[in-house]
């Protein structure tokens, strides 16, 4: 059953047009993914706290040059990227916990799992939820490929490519002019590109850079670590990709809130979207 195929053409034309927008696997995966990614992010920040420095190459430890570092002085916290340094007191590297005590861990307690420093527990959460995430992603990718979601909803069509179309869509997004009527039945080009980028690039990249950090898996698949240019490079890419995913999440949520959170939430929970009336109907 195609996403846009089923228009609820009920005779009482007064009500808004309802469309079956998201099929069950999309909705299930969306929410499972939201939960697992949140746990993975927060437990990942705890693991980062154990050594808040990032390197390029095969090795990297305290005596080696870190390209990114979250650190602290006696009274301040800072984030350093290359030679650029910014004061992050109160947020990163130097913050006050809920008992009023000063903490010097990189990420604050409200952002980590668990809230108090425990590398062991952070790893337990991270490495078990990684399984849930990887298995769900694999199943979802298979389903998108054979279930028609990829071909029908995500495939970039002829005419959608091209700078003109991209620029138009970018302008529409910037002006918060969201698709209405027929156009709201389809993903627009920026949506397609970001969903494809997230599902087929960023999310798998998280799994592969994660596996590349495993000393056991290095013996299983030495080529994987070569692909990323070394274990510490893989760790850096893991962190950068997580940041990109967080950025995607923020934009995604902002778009939902701006385009109409009730309608969007209903559609990703129940599947049914209330179609925004087309602009051509003279209501503008």
């Amino acid at each position: 059953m195609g996403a846009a195929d089923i228009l609820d053409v009920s005779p009482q034309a007064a009500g808004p047009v309802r469309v079956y927008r998201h099929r069950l696997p999309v909705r299930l995966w969306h929410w499972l993914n939201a939960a697992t990614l949140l746990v993975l992010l927060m437990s990942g920040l705890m693991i980062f706290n154990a050594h808040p420095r990032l390197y390029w190459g095969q090795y990297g430890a305290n005596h080696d040059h870190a390209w990114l570092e979250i650190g602290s002085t006696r009274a301040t916290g800072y984030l350093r990227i290359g030679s650029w340094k910014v004061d992050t007191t109160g947020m990163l590297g130097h913050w006050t916990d809920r008992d009023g005590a000063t903490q010097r861990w990189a990420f604050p307690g409200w952002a980590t799992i668990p809230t108090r420093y425990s590398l062991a527990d952070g790893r337990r959460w991270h490495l078990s939820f990684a399984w849930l995430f990887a298995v769900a992603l694999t199943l979802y990718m298979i389903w998108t490929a054979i279930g028609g979601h990829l071909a029908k909803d995500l495939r970039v069509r002829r005419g959608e490519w091209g700078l003109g179309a991209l620029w138009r869509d970018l302008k529409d997004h910037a002006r918060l002019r969201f698709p209405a009527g027929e156009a709201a039945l389809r993903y627009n080009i920026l949506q397609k590109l970001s969903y494809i980028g997230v599902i087929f690039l960023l999310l798998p990249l998280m799994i592969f850079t994660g596996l590349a950090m495993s000393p056991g898996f290095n013996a299983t698949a030495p080529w994987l670590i070569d692909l990323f240019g070394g274990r510490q490079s893989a760790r850096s890419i893991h962190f950068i990709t997580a940041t990109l995913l967080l950025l995607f999440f923020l934009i995604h949520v902002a778009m939902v809130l701006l385009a109409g959170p009730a309608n969007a939430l209903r559609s990703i929970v129940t599947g049914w979207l209330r179609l925004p009336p087309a602009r051509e109907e003279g209501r503008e």
Partner: protein
Amino acid sequence: MNDLTLPRRQLIARAGSLVAAAGALPLLSGCDAINEAPAVRKILSMGEKMHRASQRALTDRDALAREFARTDLSPVFRSNGTRLPEGDAYAAHAARGFADWRVAVRGLVARPLMLSMADIRAMPQRTQITRHDCVEGWSAIGEWTGVQLSRVLAAAELKGSARYIVFRCADRIGAAEYYESCDLIDALHPQTILAWALNRQLLPIANGAPLRLRIERQLGYKHAKYLRAIEAVASLEKVGAGKGGYWEDRVDYEWYAGI
């Protein structure tokens, strides 16, 4: 104007208050209660079992960890954990250059051994340049020389009932002595060596002098330092608190540290 774009400002305001409300929720202590719940700990520990099972299934038992060239060595090989074991006995050994240091090989073996450092150096040696991966996230590349554990266990005639090898250390953290353990797959792996040299120098005290374990497909805390006994056992239940290692017993680090 379109009724979708009209309440934009209102929507932004509502979005702002939603975010603020979510942030103010007293989630923090609730999260920690979940973290401590026995049922949750049990579910979380399944992750380790799955990683171990899948890595064992996918990896040849003798598959080697990457070995590097001398040009890849870390300029400084940092140390971690105990940097100087406490106590007069260790200090006295260090002062004599570990000439009287003995490593016991015992437990489920037909021929228990007491090996001096000279005995260990007289056995066939293996040198390997490998990457040391700390659980904290850093890595350092070093050149290690020592005897393969498989040779020592063969000399001691490991019994068929042995399932695990326990490594007893001379360093204490708090009141308890450090120890670690591994299964026979890792114990008999060609790169699992008892190393006495780092970067062609005698092992520094900070890195585990006079003898430490290298178990290259696992994280740093498995690489027991200051070795004084190697014990073959059938079960880890009665060793320490039963989880197979100092950190495993205390903070619940994974016993299988391949990831």
